[in-house]
């Protein structure tokens, strides 16, 4: 009898969960010939790529031929060729701009499609569920089905809504979200908007979405939306300061606002800024979760409190655009963290063998994975707790961080020692200082009460009403 129970789960759902197949299982179950053929093809590709890379690195084919790892160089070449056509500089600008823009857009678009599937599947895995697995193989077509559903839905305009301001925000949040990808370097010299003020550009463009969100909330003529919008505005404005302060530190160390140069600095010095500036990394990442409304700072659209926040009243593809922007922003923050703190497209020399943009995409996806991880793990802060955290903890500590790193930078500029020694010592000093500063400041700012863990409930020594309760309380 015992066996029957353990063999056959009682419910269809449980049976399904046990019988489910993963991608790995499918790969394992593939016929041997397919496996062999697949491995041969993969190995061959790797070998060919390595060979080409070897020749390119040696410079034998440089300037003559470009493989898929060097799209940046290829674009540069194309630009030079177009300039020689002599139709004016606008031709090369337009052509390369279109190609680059299309490349970025297709990457983000593809990611938006696959990203929601990844997020839902991963969340399901974290939550011991199955996730979408009905539409297409492993549910891969689910995002397309979702998009189709959203497009078919009626677009509702709430009564009393400000029509103009109600229609604009879905587009207005989409534009900065796409524009902000511009300065990210995908490979040496391969960025869509290679401007000197790249870092400032990113910060300023992302700050534009505040207004779109406020417009969405205000024009909906709905209290939930307004509450969500005001929460978002307050939070985003507050958290822009720690973000800027943590990025100023990056600028101090690398001496450039150009994202490509920041990455190049990390590649040249063979060090990731995450090691040098642990506090900035934390500040940036945490504040970014507030900027893009991800857990644990998703109070702007806390569904248990204010339903969907500022986009409560949006339906159909308008809501879909908000959701898409949210997804895209998560990946974008992943890409920013990778660029500023995790070495960007560089991987300690490996970027000469693996396409650099693949490395960056992998790092950005890792950041995205961390977001999903947090979302499935952490509860949500309250708005006043978040604001307190920004103004009382993050900002003072960030300013101290700027001061420390400024001193270190001036030391590095004057000290004639091996770079590895300088930055190694800075990394050690920064880690120690961060720990000390965070602990001290937490005490100073009165955080100590939460350090002590709350006590578990006690066992009642007697049974009774109010008198018993008072006696127990007095006795304890």
């Amino acid at each position, binding site marked *: 009898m015992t066996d029957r129970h353990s063999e056959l789960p009682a419910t269809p759902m449980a049976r399904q969960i046990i019988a489910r197949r993963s991608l790995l299982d499918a790969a394992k179950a593939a016929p041997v010939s397919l496996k062999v053929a697949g491995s041969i093809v993969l190995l061959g590709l790797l070998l060919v790529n390595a060979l080409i890379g070897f020749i390119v690195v040696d410079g034998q084919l440089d300037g003559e031929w470009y493989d898929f790892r060097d799209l940046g160089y290829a674009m540069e070449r194309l630009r030079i060729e177009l300039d020689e056509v002599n139709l*004016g500089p606008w031709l090369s600008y337009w052509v390369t701009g279109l190609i680059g823009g299309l490349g970025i857009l297709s990457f983000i678009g593809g990611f938006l499609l696959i990203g929601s599937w990844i997020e839902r599947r991963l969340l399901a895995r974290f939550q011991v569920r199955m996730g979408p697995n009905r539409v297409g193989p492993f549910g891969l077509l689910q995002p397309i089905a979702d998009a189709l559903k959203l497009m078919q839905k009626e677009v509702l305009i709430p009564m009393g809504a400000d029509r103009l301001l109600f229609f604009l925000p879905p587009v207005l949040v989409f534009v900065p979200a796409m524009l902000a990808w511009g300065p990210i370097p995908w490979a040496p010299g391969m960025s869509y908007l290679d401007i000197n003020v790249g870092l400032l550009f990113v910060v300023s463009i992302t700050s534009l979405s505040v207004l779109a969100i406020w417009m969405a909330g205000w024009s909906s003529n709905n209290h939930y939306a307004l509450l969500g919008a005001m929460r978002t505005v307050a939070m985003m404005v507050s958290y822009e300061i720690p973000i800027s302060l943590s990025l100023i530190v990056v600028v101090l160390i690398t001496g450039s606002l150009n994202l490509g140069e920041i990455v190049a600095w990390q590649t040249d010095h063979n060090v990731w800024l995450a090691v040098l500036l642990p506090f900035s990394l934390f500040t940036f990442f945490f504040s970014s979760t507030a900027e893009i409304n991800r857990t644990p700072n998703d109070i702007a659209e806390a569904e248990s409190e204010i339903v969907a926040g500022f986009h409560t009243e949006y339906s159909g593809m308008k809501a879909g655009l908000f959701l898409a922007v949210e997804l895209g922003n998560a990946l974008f923050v992943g890409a920013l963290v990778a660029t500023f703190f995790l070495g960007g497209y560089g991987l300690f020399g490996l970027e000469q063998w693996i396409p650099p943009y693949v490395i960056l995409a992998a790092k950005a996806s890792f950041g995205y994975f961390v977001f999903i991880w947090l979302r499935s793990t952490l509860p949500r802060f309250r708005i006043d707790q978040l604001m307190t955290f920004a103004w009382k903890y993050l900002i003072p500590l960030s300013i101290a961080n700027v001061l420390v790193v400024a001193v270190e930078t001036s030391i590095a500029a004057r000290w004639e020692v091996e770079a590895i020694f300088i930055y190694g010592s800075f990394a050690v000093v920064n880690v120690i200082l961060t720990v000390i500063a965070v602990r001290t400041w937490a005490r100073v700012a009165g955080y100590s009460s939460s350090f002590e863990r709350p006590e578990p409930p006690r066992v009642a020594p007697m049974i009774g009403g109010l008198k018993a309760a008072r006696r127990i309380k007095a006795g304890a």
Partner: protein
Amino acid sequence: MDSLGVVIAFYVLSAITIVSAASIFLLRNLVHAIVLLVVVFLGMAGLFLTLSADFIAVAQILIYAGAISVLFVFAVMLTPLASRDNGNSLYAGPGLLLGGAIAAIVVVTAFDVEWNQLTGVALEQRSFTDTIEVIGNQLLGPHVLAFEVASVLLLFALLGAIVLVTDPNNEDGAAAEEEAGKDTAVGGSE
């Protein structure tokens, strides 16, 4: 600046900016006016870009479109009982007259004067490549005193805004909330 792109950009951006600015005057809804103000700021940033002032353009977006407009939003949202209309006062007539006069004088002067300006090739050659470095050197070189004064000004503005808006009677917000809670709770359970 003969480049077709720059010319088109200039005309489009100035049209957007001027029309939006005029609409701020004409519109009767203050909230719409704020949105249009942001459009003006962004158009201005675009005009700055055509002047190859990249740092200033980005700073303009960051400070004006990102921060000051949010201040305006908060000012409107924090005055909920005040009227949200954008009406004119008695001074509308004289104001319009004075504004029009200033605009007319500046426009006429601008086109009338023979400016000693760079043109053609000299202008094309003199493109600012790295404005940030020069600005930084100037701020911390010849203008360091002004820079420090500006920073002190910002600090005092921050403090002043906080001092102005903080309630002098109960400086501790938590205590105020406790009081409010007590007020409403009385009569319920006791």
